[in-house]
């Protein structure tokens, strides 16, 4: 035994000692990398495991959730009073997509034009100030946006609804949700579009100018078109953020229990705001269903991303750097 130890000792003391350290360090770092990478698998496995239970388990007589009804349903019944297995998430999926794309519709033009301004039009000083403003906006936590939404935007919308002669539940509405989300994804879209606009080849611009187009014409017709692939990427990330945003939305959406709702002043619900409802339970169907909604959210985000990426490819590229 002692002999073995001595040989190991001698081996370690020999000039190869450094190599052992190298091997050890490499193994350790590989392990941490594996740990980092494994979390995506852990997320998938555990959310799937918990989220599938409502469709299999009987929950002591409440009964299992019908998958078809769950995916197509237009009402969400929950809580002890209902003892319910009648969850319908179909209308919420539609609401979520509707709201996400409306938000994009609002903030994409503003974001892209702001990016164009920062990258091409603004004087250097102003551009760097604006860039800082965009960075600060991006750094503001979502809960603060939610607070701003329920403190300011809800009030504005409540007054607006009165002018239109529509009932609104304290301002909680589709419009409020869309506005809050637009504010939140604006910095993302602006920052990414700016990068895209900056990476447009200077030659294309110069060519346009040489042909007699004005600077503004060049910016709008040539630069923006050339950057459209990058701008589309920004839009994809913006939609992704809008779909996944939770706390701010839950403060202004109004948590509608049925739908889908398309009218601007009606309350609505998104997948994330539904997941945040009724946090009191720690066991049972109301707890597990949250994971099922989580699965739906992941699938919706994945499908949206794939579709948009497909569209992006179809649109094609004028110029890729």
């Amino acid at each position: 035994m002692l002999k073995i130890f001595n040989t190991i000792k001698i081996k370690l003391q020999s000039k190869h000692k450094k190599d052992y350290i190298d091997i050890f360090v490499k193994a350790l770092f590989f392990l941490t990398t594996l740990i980092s990478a494994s979390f995506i698998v852990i997320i998938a496995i555990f959310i799937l495991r918990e989220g599938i239970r409502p469709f299999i388990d009987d929950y002591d007589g409440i009964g299992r959730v019908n998958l078809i009804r769950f995916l197509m349903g237009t009402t969400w019944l929950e809580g002890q009073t209902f003892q319910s297995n009648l969850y319908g998430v179909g209308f919420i999926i539609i609401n979520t997509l509707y709201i996400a794309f409306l938000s994009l519709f609002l903030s994409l033009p503003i974001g892209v034009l702001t990016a164009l301004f920062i990258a091409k039009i603004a004087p250097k000083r102003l551009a760097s100030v604006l860039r800082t403003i965009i960075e600060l906006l991006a750094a503001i936590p979502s809960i603060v946006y939610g607070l701003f939404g329920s403190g300011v935007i809800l009030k504005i919308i409540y007054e607006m609804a009165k002018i239109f002669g529509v009932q609104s539940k304290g301002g909680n509405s589709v419009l409020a949700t869309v506005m809050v989300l637009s504010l939140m994804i604006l910095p993302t879209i602006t920052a990414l579009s700016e990068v895209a606009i900056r990476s447009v080849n200077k030659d294309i611009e110069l060519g346009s100018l040489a042909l007699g187009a004005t600077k503004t014409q060049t910016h709008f017709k040539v630069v923006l078109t050339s950057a459209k692939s990058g701008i589309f990427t920004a839009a994809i990330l913006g939609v992704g953020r809008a779909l996944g945003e939770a706390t701010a939305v839950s403060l202004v959406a109004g948590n509608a229990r049925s739908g889908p709702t398309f009218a601007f002043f009606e309350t609505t619900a998104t997948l994330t705001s539904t997941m945040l409802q009724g946090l009191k339970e720690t066991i049972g169907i109301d707890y597990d269903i949250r994971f099922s909604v989580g699965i739906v959210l992941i699938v919706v985000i994945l499908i949206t991303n794939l579709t948009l990426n497909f569209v992006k490819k179809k649109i094609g590229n004028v110029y890729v750097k």
Partner: protein
Amino acid sequence: MSNKRKRIDNLLKGITYFSASIAAIILLFIIIFVFKNGFGLLNIDLITNDYHAKFYNGGIEEVTEFSKTQRPSHLSDEDYYSEKWGIALRDDLDREGKAMVIVSYISEDSPLYQIYDKNNDDNDEFMIEKGNLISSIKFEDKASALSVYGAQHMIQILNESNQFREIVFSSLGGGIRGSLITTLYIIGITLAIALPIGIFSAIYLNELSRKNKINQMIRSMIETLTGVPSIIYGLMGLAVFVPLTVKYTPATSANLISGSLTLAVILLPVIIKATEESLKVVPDDYRQASLALGANRTQTTFKAVLPSALPGILTATILSIGRIIGESAALIFAIGTAVKDNITIFGRSTTLSVHIWSLMTDEPANIELASTIALIILVIVLLLNLIVKLISHQYLKKLA
């Protein structure tokens, strides 16, 4: 250039000016809103006080000696002082605008130091302190002195009496000490977990790994993590880390450790990416020089490459702190929404951001306190971001 063209150009240019101003206006509005609503409550008491008010019933033995302390000179005209009982009271309004009577001074020889806790036999530290609210003083032989009649009335009745049956008082409450401490704990624990794992992974991916299928797959798996919404991370914390910590620690439910672990996973891709970026900037000459001098890979990485990448890692850390302070959705699941005053790392409690969420989902919502917390968060997060900007600016200057 025709006049028409000029007009169109100016119009288009104007649109971009208008769009760009929107971002500035939004930022301004948010800051004004948070300041306007939150600044009123912001003071040192808010930060040091407990959130939950504690109510006490104080009884009193026979008073043998009354206070001899004169009215202290630092008391203002609004303070009503009873020389006999050595206590000064003042009228104030609570957050709902209701009248309350607050203790603004209590002398050391006040007979009120001899009161005992009627609800708890062995409460040794029981006493009325500066900042407590007096809701009523009840007497054997006359009507109670209630806080609604004001401090002057209360002092008047006290001066006339030599004995009372009971004094009902409470601590102020509404403070955010608990959430603040939780946030600090969470920052500490999360960084302790996420920084080593993240930095090691980045070093592996950038310095040590070969370019092969497995490493590429690992890389894309880590990249996928960036797109996952934080509420999904919260679900993972709920499904993985909460049961794990309940099993292996004294915790019985969601706790600070499970919250920190969840946040650490959220931060991993951020830290890995930032560290990798800063490693990529380090010139290859450094590595080759170090290796040529006979140093091995480990020495090269730790002594030659990492020091140069330090500013990048520092910025990643600072940004992570901002992210931890701001995160809400994941933590609502991973540590819960219960606002607590006694913080243990194995117990439930909540960070400042989640505190805002609980305040806003309460009925009725407490926008003032929520804004005050938001103000604190906003100042910290924006400062951190400006610091990062400064560091990277300096660093870029140095490189150039």
